[in-house]
């Protein structure tokens, strides 16, 4: 080999020890996790249920799927889920605005930002289902509990993304406005808000996408949405009903995702 090339190759950092340590740790972790999870194939009953679910998906309960009367059918339940996610996102994003300002180190002092961050981490770790149960004490079972849960659980992520937006504000604009003699109000109105607005909106729409998914599971604790009917249908082995709910859910979430992606693209590109 060319001498220069060989020399250059030798200069490359030797990462064998580092990489092999990581490999050993990873292998150990994999073996450990295999020990913990008792791998069970599916028995006859499982296969039976799997086929039932599939046949349910392909022969859904059409009457249930297209029952547009209020409440009873899939469209009504999906509408309720949409409403829960929407209100939860709206409330959550409003609550996140002051929190995100309190979290960004360029606006408040470091200790304050750190404490707010800790509080937000604390809020975020409690599973949404636990919040659901807490709010059911306040409002009684129903979609309202779901709305409150969504508002609280979406604060964490929204405020973290808001902080990124705030930290990345283009300060040059503000300096330019100061040099032109603008007042503080004008600076906020024409320098800061236009920059924040579309990014905040984009984050909020993104979170709506996620909330819609999460809103479907709140039904598990009785906080409204399509989750509860799904579980009842499964527990009583009404597979065609399960099929129609799943189809409705997949179509709705896909549609919202495509729509929100389009909207966010337009927001970001102006």
């Amino acid at each position: 080999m060319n001498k220069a090339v060989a020399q250059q190759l030798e200069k490359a950092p030797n990462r064998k020890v580092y990489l092999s340590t990581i490999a050993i740790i990873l292998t150990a972790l994999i073996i450990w996790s295999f020990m913990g999870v008792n791998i069970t194939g599916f028995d006859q009953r499982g296969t039976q249920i799997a086929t039932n679910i599939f046949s349910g998906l392909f022969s859904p309960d059409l009457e249930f799927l297209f029952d547009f009367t209020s409440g009873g059918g899939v469209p009504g339940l999906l509408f309720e889920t949409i409403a829960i996610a929407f209100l939860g996102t709206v409330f959550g994003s409003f609550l996140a605005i002051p929190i995100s300002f309190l979290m960004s180190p360029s606006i408040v002092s470091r200790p304050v930002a750190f404490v707010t961050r800790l509080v937000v981490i604390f809020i975020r770790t409690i599973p949404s289902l636990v919040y659901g149960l807490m709010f059911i004490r306040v409002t009684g079972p129903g979609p309202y509990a779901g709305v409150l849960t969504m508002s609280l659980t979406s604060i964490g992520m929204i405020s973290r993304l808001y902080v990124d937006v705030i930290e990345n504000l283009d300060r040059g604009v503000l300096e330019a406005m100061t040099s032109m003699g603008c007042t503080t109000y004008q600076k906020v109105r024409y320098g800061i808000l236009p920059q924040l607005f579309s990014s905040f909106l984009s984050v909020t729409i993104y979170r709506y996408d996620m909330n819609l998914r999460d809103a479907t599971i709140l039904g598990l604790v009785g906080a409204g949405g399509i989750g509860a009917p799904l579980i009842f249908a499964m527990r009583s082995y009404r597979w065609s009903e399960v099929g129609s709910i799943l189809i409705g859910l997949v179509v709705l979430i896909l549609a919202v995702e495509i729509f929100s992606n389009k909207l966010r693209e337009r927001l970001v590109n102006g």
Partner: protein
Amino acid sequence: MRETVYDKIFKPKTYTLSNGKEVKQRASRAPFILLIVLFVTVVSGEVTGVDLSMLRTRGHQFIVILTAMFPPNFNFMNNVWGPLFDTIQMSLLGSIAGALLAIPFALLSSSNIIRNRLLNGFFKLFLSILRTLPTLISALIATFIFGLGTMAGTVAIFLFTLSYIGKLMYEHIENVDMGAFEAHESMGLSKVEAFRYAIVPDVLPTYLSVSLYAFEGNIRFAAILGYVGAGGVGLLLDERLGWRDYPSVGMVLLILMLVVFVIERISEYFRMKLT
């Protein structure tokens, strides 16, 4: 400037510049959007029965459970470790298996690697549909198929990880600069070799960091999977909440918080190193 229907109703403002040129500024869409949002909010409020005064009168009920959790029942700590390790093992195994299987799926979905639009479209659609299913619901289905226990949770996490990493990776692979690949090929390397030396170094850091991120999130998910009987610490949470043994619930949440925090820190450290 293209005029849309909106511009015809609300005429754009016209400015005449000093050189005689006319510039039009579109009327702001913000009021229109705000109106829609307001309308949807009101409708949603009707549907979900939102009643803000209830928050004032009964809001303290929310604090009741929270205060009951303090101080946490430290004697309960020994009961937490077993299910907690179950949770970690579940999410670890599910994440690793999902991340590994995501590679072929991502490759089959990227149009610059496999030049077959039908195949790409099929796998992309498959990943999207898989991603729409909330983890808890796939866990629920899995408990029916695999029986109650950690296996169901692992499968649910596996499916979610597969779809999540698969999507992010094919998006990344499709944006890889293919010039390096072509250069390697023109130097006489086979397609596989060119892939190994041109694409892999580009994609690998993202893949690892996305996988770590997915694992991080999966721990959080895994914690609630027990709710539908899919094993782990959620089972404990469900049971204790059912018995209204809130100090123990507080203990479970406290430990969960610590574990999630530590794992997030570790994974964040490695992700920072990767990028």
